[in-house]
């Protein structure tokens, strides 16, 4: 029994590898895709507890993927991973749509705590609708 299912959408192979390595080691089920289109396809194919979505993605940028997820699966939990500098300023518009945001580079423990909190909230929401 996994602690939860994550989908990593990041164009950088090592980042996907690192996140998979860490969270698989921690007992989570992690899938990873390299762009937004593949991410939306993966979400349509199978449910995930949390999507870890990179902001800078080829073909379809992170915020656009986030909008699409919100349109199709309004309750899907999404954590945005940004590269620390955004052209839109300190608080881009999409932070309001996401369930959490982290600037790279982040301590892995911090992401872990954020994900566990979201899973806990989801479990609460599931038991007390």
């Amino acid at each position: 029994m996994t602690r939860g299912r994550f989908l990593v959408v990041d164009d950088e192979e090592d980042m996907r590898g690192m996140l998979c390595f860490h969270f698989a080691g921690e007992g989570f089920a992690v899938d990873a895709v390299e762009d937004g289109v593949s991410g939306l396809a993966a979400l349509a194919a199978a449910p995930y507890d949390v999507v870890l979505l990179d902001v800078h993605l080829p073909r379809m940028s992170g915020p656009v993927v986030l909008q699409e997820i919100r349109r199709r699966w309004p309750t899907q939990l999404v954590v945005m991973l940004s590269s620390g500098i955004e052209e839109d300023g300190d608080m881009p518009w999409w932070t309001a749509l996401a369930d959490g945001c982290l600037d790279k580079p982040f301590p892995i423990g911090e992401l872990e705590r954020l994900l566990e909190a979201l899973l806990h909230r989801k479990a609460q929401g599931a038991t007390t609708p």
Partner: protein
Amino acid sequence: MRLFWKAYLGVAVVIAVPITLGTWVAADAFSEIRKASLITEARILVQALAGEIETGHAKGQWPFESLNRFTSGKNILSWWVVRPDGRIHLASDSRFMGSAASDYYPAEATTLGERRAIVDWVRRYTLLTTPLRIVPSRWSLWVFVDLRSAVRATRQITVGAIALTLLVLGVVGAVLREVLRKALGPLRDLHEGATRLAAGALAHRVPVRARDELGELAESFNRMSASLESTTVSRDYVDSIVASVDSALMVFSRSGSILRANERACDITGRSGETIVGEPWSELFDEALSAGIQEVAAGTRSVLRREGVIRAPEGKSVPVYVCCSAVRGRDDRPELALVCVAHDLRDQKRLEEERRRLQEELFQKQKMASLGTLVAGLSHELNNPLGIILGYAQSLVKRTPQDAPSRPALVAIEKQATRSAGLVRALLDFSRGKPAERQLVSPDSLLRQVTELSKGQAQRREVELQVEAAQEALPAVDVCAQEIASALLNILGNALDATAAGGRVVLRAGPASREDRAGVELSVADTGCGIAPEVLPHIFDPFFTTKPVGQGTGLGLALSRQFAEANGGDVSVESTPGQGTTMRLWLPSAAVPRAGALA
């Protein structure tokens, strides 16, 4: 009115002389005519008288009564009947009877021929004699004819002529006076105009009263005045020019004193108009200017043009541009004076300084802007790899047992990746101008931190790294520890790079005040190669590096200084080529030390 008297005398002579001559000739002629007429009348009368006497004598009596009757009312003064012996026998005036006629008249009168006349102008009568044809013979009749009427007529003519002359002279005088007054009016105007012109009133003009020769004269006088006014420089004019020049204008004697100075000169030199005159000009200028002016005074140099300084009181100095030359006379001979114009350069210097400062500021801003762009791009590119390294490291540390031999390596990777991430964050904040988060740090801990991090590099380069602890407890500084640590690491890294094997790098911390602000000085002294003097001013410039291509970014010291300044401090450098360099990082002490917050 001398001209009047000259003219009047001339006119009077011209008028009076002909009148006088004419009158004289006319009176003389008239007198002659009148006299001749009187004598002719008298001759007739004498013949009649002779006839009467002859008739009476023939009758045996002297016709005394009838003779008197004949002669009364005529121009006859008296008559005598003279006997042959020359005695007066009968006379109109009985007192003469019996006396000798020669008593009254010279002898020749008695011998006068018939009808001879003696004219005595002195006694204004003429004597007519005629022989009487009575027996015995040689009786004669003498008749004195009165000529005064002729003289009277002459006198009347003369008096009339004199009166006429005087009248004419009077009229002529009056006319002449009036004519001269009219003619001399413009001359008087010209006289007054010339007097005023001589006094310097170049703007004065004389009235042009008539279109005649005098009017033309007045016009040409006015033209001359206008020409003088336009070409001649009056003293007032010179004074106002000197006063209006917007530079210090001074006149010097060759002997070395100031003869004249305008208001601007007093203003620039900081002296009053009374004290500046007579002062030696060498006191005013700096040595170079004084020497140059001395050359002009000596004639070895024609013109001095140079920038320099005027010494004002209280040790102030005014930058000026000075032009000095000898005053030249009309014939181009140098006079005894020098003229000196000093243009105040204070405003210009201020503007230049301001422009230089703005240019410097702009240059700095441009450098920082490009630095910011670079840093932003760079950190964006760095964040992803750092995130991956940090993620793997932390993940591995977490699942590696405490006693595993690889654990310290993983911990070190995590630590350095975290430091790098922090530095990138600080760089990013800095390039965005976002103030870094400050905390109270003890200077010693900063030194310990950087020493720890640089120990490996020092060992590899075989350089002794020495930390000298402060004598006393140092106050904490309120800074972004990450920024200051990286500033120190940069400085220390440079020191280690510059020092050859066997050398030494000493880190010190000590109290230091700047401008009455308490603070701490962290110094890094090396025994390295030193910094060349021509390089020294540029070492803090962004992108300036002396390291080989690919080894230095040129950002290290620039960031160190930016970090120091962002935290209220500064960085200074002292270097002796061949002996070493000391860099000092000064930081202000925290205003209120919070003991519990020390990192």
